[in-house]
């Protein structure tokens, strides 16, 4: 689409490899011995009841939390949150509070594109917003958007930046029918581009439409 930071991409390697991952909070173990892989162009859904550790797994994979034990590799490189290359490869949307309070939607996207090396961020940001059905809200401040519109904008930030692995926590939440169709289109495009997609969801329809594999997390471990 336009020139930006290039993310090193190697089709013959796994995009994500999680081996024997454990995550504990004090004496409580949330995840134990998790093994998981995501290949290029593959979408993996993480499902399971509330409290089974879906979000915790995604936070560890995106570098926001550190696993208590085990290995996480992105493109065959051990994940270290402070490593710029590792951070360049992962685009994650785990909640909606992901905007500057005083920056309107279009400027936020333009700044994001600019930060990642886009040469014409303003027009590209406007086009992305238009495609996502948010064109009329370009100058709206994020707190003024409805929760569904904010969700779309948050997802857009993920699809606008360079990435190798897309990590999404219940991306379908609060989206209307059009929004869900847009999301499914975007995720299919991600797979076509050879990116890996890892998402947690309770939505069977989204899982059957997008996921190539499903990882079911069990009950909360004692």
């Amino acid at each position, binding site marked *: 689409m336009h020139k930006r930071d290039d993310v090193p991409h190697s089709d013959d390697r796994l995009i994500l490899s999680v081996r024997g991952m454990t995550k504990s909070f004090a004496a409580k173990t949330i995840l134990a011995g998790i093994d998981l892989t995501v290949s290029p162009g593959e979408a993996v859904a993480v499902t399971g009841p509330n409290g089974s550790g879906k979000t915790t797994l995604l936070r560890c994979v995106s570098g926001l939390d550190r696993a208590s034990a085990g290995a996480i590799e992105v493109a065959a490189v051990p994940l270290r949150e402070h490593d710029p290359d590792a951070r360049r490869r992962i685009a994650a949307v785990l909640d909606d509070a992901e905007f500057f309070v005083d920056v309107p939607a279009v400027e936020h996207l333009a700044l994001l594109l600019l930060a990642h090396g886009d040469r014409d961020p303003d027009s590209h940001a406007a086009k992305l917003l238009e495609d996502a059905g948010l064109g009329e809200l370009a*100058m709206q401040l994020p707190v003024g958007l409805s929760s569904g519109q904010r969700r779309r904008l948050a997802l857009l930030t993920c699809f606008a930046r360079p990435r190798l692995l897309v990590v999404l926590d219940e991306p379908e939440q609060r989206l209307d029918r059009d929004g869900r169709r847009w999301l499914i289109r975007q995720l299919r495009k991600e797979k076509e581009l050879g990116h890996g997609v890892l998402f947690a969801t309770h939505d069977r329809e989204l899982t059957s439409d997008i996921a190539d594999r499903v990882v079911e997390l069990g009950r909360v471990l004692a």
Partner: protein
Amino acid sequence: MSAIDAPITARAVRHRLRQRRIQAQQTTRSQIARVYEKAIVAAILLGVAAGAVHPLWTAMAAPGVLAPNAPAQLFVFAVLLGILAMSIRILRAAGPLAASAAFRFWLLTTPVRRRDLLRPRAMALVAAVAAATGLVAAPIAHLAATGALLTAAFVGAGTIVATAAVWAQASATADRALHAVGQVLGAGSTLAFGSLATGVGRTGLNSALGVSSVTAFSILLSVVVAGIVCAAFAYRALDRIDLGALKHGHGLWTAGRAAAGFFDVLLLSDLLAEQRARDVGYARPVALGPWLRRSRWRLEWTRLRRRPGLVVRVGCAALVWWACVPVLSGSVLVALAVILGYCVVLPMAATLRQLWMRPTLRTQFAPHDRSLIFRSIGVCALTAVVWTGLTLPTLPVLAIVTMPVGLTAAAYRTVTRPPLDYSMPPVGTPIGDIPIDLIRQLVRGPLLVVGVIVGLVMIG
């Protein structure tokens, strides 16, 4: 729901509910314990109130300490006007009457006049504002030759402001008028500080403040009349205050309580920023030149263009500081320069604060979030340099390095607090046990401010 004549009074409803609560929860022994606890709290509050009123009374009774034409006469006037302008701003932002979700539901569903339910809150608010303004005014007004008159007039003005704010909550016209009054008072305060700082018109204004007893009586009388009029309008307005207006300030009260509980004023400023964004809704476009359009500085630049108040605040703080030069001296002046500098540099770290608060926001920009952080620090440093330049003529020469570095570092450390670690042991303090990590976080920035003050005082 419009106000209707109540089949039962609010007092009766409250009494019935209280009785039901007591019957449902309490044994005789626990009721005695509850009364005992309340008695202790009441005794403490009475003691505090008495202790607070005493200096007020002393200040009103004692003669002023300044000669009639001393510069501090005008200083006192400027400070008091500034406090009134600030009170109007805070009261408008805070509601001033606010209601929790439960109370709003109660207002919506109870067939009792809204005025009856809101009256105790309104009276408590007016009394609190009057007492607070009196407490603030007394020690400042005491400096002036007409200290007693100033204190009385200021308490009256505080009462007027509080009642007018309640009235403004029900009327858009009154709200606009109150806003305009606040602007005029703020402008008056700025002009008075400007006159003090530059010396222009200082003598004339000072002599104008030395009013005759007849004029003083007329001023007090007009304050009383204005107070009565505002109170009457506020009382009538209580029935017309809608739920949206009561909801508006509730977040601020909640954040205020949390900020007080955690001693963290940033919690309050975050909420104010969000409230401002909510009120504005849409941001106006800012024209960017070709260079800025492709520069990561555009975030900082557009923020300053949209909120010129951040820059104006630097000018106002410099004005206040220069106005203090003829009145204060020595280490107090140095301390004021550093503290005012900290206050103007801290808001410039908005980008840094938001990136630090929201780790997921950082991940969006990763790995380029660091460049945004550097630019935010750059804006803080630039502001600190400008502030140092504005205040340097009366500070030690070494402040040229100490001040910008110290202020930038203090702002950086203040906004980059890590999340609170509750697992660390609590420390006993006069106000109860506080997690040691909270103390460590609270002093992160201010400790550097204190360090800069001590350093400059020792050098000077």
